[in-house]
């Protein structure tokens, strides 16, 4: 039997048994469609576990360095825009919702509705990436990208304005005192050389770019897969297919929610704490 014929048989079988298992071809290693779908999901979960540990290790490294250089990191935090971060969180949470609705529509074999919700998810992901683009360009402009022309000047400048950093001179050498101004009284918590300050804030932006960059890459990959799924759902709609395999959408959904969860942790840890 050709693949096409097999597909047709599978569709007919499942269309008649009253269960919407999708029209995926049943692999010979599986007893039932149900078992096959479960295996797909478990495989996807194994991948997600790997992703969780992958991001988790970077979070752990970030946590340790933030603990070690808490004052420097706190001042560097202030360079990130909370409104943009909040907007991006909102957009991503909403995209998770539209993704869940797309999966639901796929299970009901409502192809047009599925394409619509996938399209919304795609748009939200796009808005997220556009925001990221503006955010990144601003960092590059202020020389906060930890590359060749990194310069902590703007961090120093903002911290001085807020009364959290004071430049002092001792024995002809320049030092930065980091602390807080309360009732016009500056209290220094720590004292560092400008070189140390530059290195440590640079480390913060290193973490910022690696973490948000890897996350952004995941969003981008998700957008490509969602784009393909939109096309598939739209073709199913045009062909008036009674039943389609929902597993690709379901598994992409799991991936997309994972991307959302990573951001749920990135947002407070990079943008909010230390305010």
């Amino acid at each position, binding site marked *: 039997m050709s693949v096409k014929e097999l597909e047709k048989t599978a569709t007919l079988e499942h269309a008649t048994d009253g269960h919407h298992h999708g029209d995926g071809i049943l692999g010979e290693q599986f007893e039932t469609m149900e078992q096959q779908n479960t295996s797909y999901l478990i495989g996807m*979960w194994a991948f997600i576990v790997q992703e969780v540990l992958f991001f988790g290790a970077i*979070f752990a490294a970030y*946590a340790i360095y933030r*603990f070690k250089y808490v004052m420097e990191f706190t001042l560097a935090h202030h360079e990130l825009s909370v409104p943009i971060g909040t907007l991006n969180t909102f957009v991503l*949470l909403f995209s998770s919702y539209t993704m869940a609705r797309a999966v639901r529509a796929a299970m009901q074999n409502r192809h047009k509705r599925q394409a619509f919700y996938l399209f919304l998810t795609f748009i939200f992901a796009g808005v997220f990436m556009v925001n990221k683009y503006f955010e990144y360009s601003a960092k590059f402009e202020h020389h906060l990208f930890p590359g060749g022309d990194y310069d902590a000047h703007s961090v120093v400048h903002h911290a001085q304005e807020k009364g959290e950093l004071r430049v002092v001179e001792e024995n002809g050498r320049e030092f930065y005192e980091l602390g807080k101004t309360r009732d016009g009284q500056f209290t220094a918590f720590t004292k560092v050389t400008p070189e140390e300050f530059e290195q440590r804030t640079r480390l913060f932006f290193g973490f910022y770019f690696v973490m948000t960059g890897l996350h952004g890459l995941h969003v981008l990959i998700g957008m490509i897969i969602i784009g393909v799924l939109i096309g598939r759902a739209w073709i199913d709609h045009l062909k008036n297919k009674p039943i389609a395999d929902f597993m690709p959408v379901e598994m992409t*959904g799991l991936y997309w*929610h994972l991307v*959302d969860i990573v951001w749920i942790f990135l*947002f407070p840890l990079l943008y*909010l704490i230390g305010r």
Partner: protein
Amino acid sequence: MAGHSDSHVHPVSLYTRTLWWLMALLVLTVVAGYIPNVPNWLGVVIALTIAVWKATIVIMNFMHVRFSGKLAWLFAGAGFFWLIIMLAFAFADYVSRPWEPFHGWPE
């Protein structure tokens, strides 16, 4: 079994309710971030607690783990179990920060 192998379609209200909770928690975490005079460590604990809360409802409701079989629970659980082992030691730093103030820390 795992997933919704019975192809159970959940009511839309499950997803809308989850979305409203997520939005409410987003507002809460931003507002909490701006409360003045909160010690640094407490701010981190509050932010992480809300983040874990948000992640949990995404996993349970959007990722359907709540309705899944034991195998999916095992896989999802194993990942987070190992993550907790790894992070517990890192975040112990956060918790112990007030116990070991660095030189010059005011009373």
